């Protein structure tokens, strides 16, 4: 799938801007603060319906405007064109259209357009908290199969519901017979959807492990050993049993202490945990390797490469690694943003100055 045309109206620092994109590698050049990341963010928004900066969609609307529009024409591998439009309204409901037909729910757009973003922020996958790593896994799952979006949302919701029951149990003296059954049924629901999500994550981690190692070797040119592990202590006994064991503790604390919302991904590099032991450069290369491996896996499984956006990641790498990254990307459309010239093969160059094409 490729993006042929991207139009931004009142998005971030863009009043109106139209980008014609072609197959191959396009470099978007611009000085700091001129709108490179904003462009990458808008493109990725159509694929994930969220900002990779982790902010609500309101932040994407240009300051002073009530709503913004992101519009793209995409062409899939069979040559079929579609027009995708997202209208973001500050404080209101966002709307999404495909070929001028409004979709009943915004989330129905997921899967229509696929984009992988590499960003300097990816470092949080290695250095950040468990939530950052869970997000990486879940985003990858959604890119592999859209159904995981619903599962991940349901897990979030069931955890919130269970926590609310726990809190209300603490504050009021409601009939305990009923409370027991109420918690039983929420536990049962959480173990059902949570179990499915954790199983999918663990399977993904198993598949990614060797691929991350390969990606790291491709980028660094060293025979480094990388091992991934999915950490979910409750999986030995099953979630329903683990939740039952934790119930008294959870009732005192008013939060659910076990489940997929507390799990983690460990990345071990040459026998050492990367978060605490790896060097800055190793951590950066690891983060890239995780993204590259996920991108390769999605390309392989879905039989088509997502559009790849490299937002300012090359400038952080030495020339050797930057070149290695470009050499090891699967074939497909690539958009690279940078403040300085980019090494390697470039098919087209676009310049932006202050939210305008120069």
């Amino acid at each position, binding site marked *: 799938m490729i993006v042929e045309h991207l139009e931004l109206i009142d998005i971030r620092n863009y009043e109106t801007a139209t980008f014609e994109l072609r197959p191959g590698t396009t470099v978007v050049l611009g000085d700091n603060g001129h709108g490179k990341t904003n462009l990458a963010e808008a493109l990725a928004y159509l694929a994930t319906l969220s900002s990779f900066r982790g902010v609500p969609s309101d932040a994407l609307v240009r300051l002073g405007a009530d709503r913004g529009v992101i519009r793209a024409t995409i062409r899939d591998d069979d040559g079929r064109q579609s027009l995708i439009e997202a209208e973001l*309204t500050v*404080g*209101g*409901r966002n709307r999404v259209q495909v070929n001028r037909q409004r979709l009943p729910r915004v989330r129905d757009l997921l899967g229509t357009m696929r984009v992988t973003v590499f960003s300097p922020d990816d470092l949080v996958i290695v250095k950040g908290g468990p939530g950052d790593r869970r997000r990486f896994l879940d985003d990858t799952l959604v890119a592999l199969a859209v159904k995981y979006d*619903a599962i991940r949302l*349901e897990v979030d*919701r*069931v955890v*919130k*519901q*269970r926590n*609310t*029951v726990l809190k*209300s149990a603490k504050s009021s003296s*409601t*009939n305990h017979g*009923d409370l027991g*059954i*109420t918690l*039983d*049924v*929420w536990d*049962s*629901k959480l173990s059902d959807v949570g179990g499915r999500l954790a199983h999918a994550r663990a399977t993904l981690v198993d598949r990614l492990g060797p691929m991350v190692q390969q990606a790291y070797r491709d980028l660094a040119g060293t025979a480094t050993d990388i091992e991934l592990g999915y950490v979910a202590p409750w999986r030995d006994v099953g979630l329903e049993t683990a939740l039952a064991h934790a119930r008294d503790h959870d009732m005192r604390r008013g939060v659910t202490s076990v489940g997929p919302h507390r799990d983690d991904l460990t990345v071990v590099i040459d026998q050492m945990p990367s978060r605490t032991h790896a060097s800055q450069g190793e951590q950066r290369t690891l983060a890239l390797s995780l993204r590259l491996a996920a991108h390769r896996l999605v390309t392989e499984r879905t039989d088509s490469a997502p559009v790849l956006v490299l937002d300012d990641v090359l400038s952080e790498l030495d020339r050797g690694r930057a070149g290695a990254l470009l050499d090891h990307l699967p074939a497909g459309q690539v958009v690279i943003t940078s403040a300085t010239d980019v090494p390697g093969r470039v098919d087209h160059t676009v310049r932006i100055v202050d939210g305008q094409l120069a």
Partner: protein
Amino acid sequence: MVSAYTPPVQTLIDELGRLPGIGPKSAQRIAFHLLKLPSADVARLAHAINDAKDKVRFCERCFNVAEGALCPICADDRRDATVVCVVEESRDIVALERTGEFRGRYHVLLGAMNPLEGIGPEQLKIRELLTRIDAEGITEVILCTNPNTEGEVTAMYLARQLQPLGLTVTRIASGLPVGGDLEYADELTLGRALEGRRPVDDG
């Protein structure tokens, strides 16, 4: 909190914002729409709300909307009193009646378990359902709550309460769009789901 609007306008926005599915932005838009309408139109809307509230009440037995003490279904003695279909809202009865598959009676819970919205089993008509079992000689309960998170959990809760009473407890078959509402299911799908209901396993 300081409001940008004069008190009557702010009160209207607040009241509208309390309605299900209406967020603050929509409440604001509807409020200003109402203010622009001719007085007669507004009076007609206000009258329709008051009139419905005055004339319509809940069936004493099943909590379906009714004009008298009993809803038309409870008042119809040709319906099978031994089978009860449990739904979240009256509008689900309309959907199920359209299928023409069901000849028993209903019980409306008036919602589903949703702790985030302050709705637990106590806020639903569950105790009333339990008292109906013996009183009406009910032998089968079909759980027709919505196929979404809250509906599923409510069905599980009811199953746990009903099974010790020695009844046949069944759950409407899947095949309904997951995460959806009964009211949006077409009657063919809904009819099949009702026919293909399955006993709930002991949890």
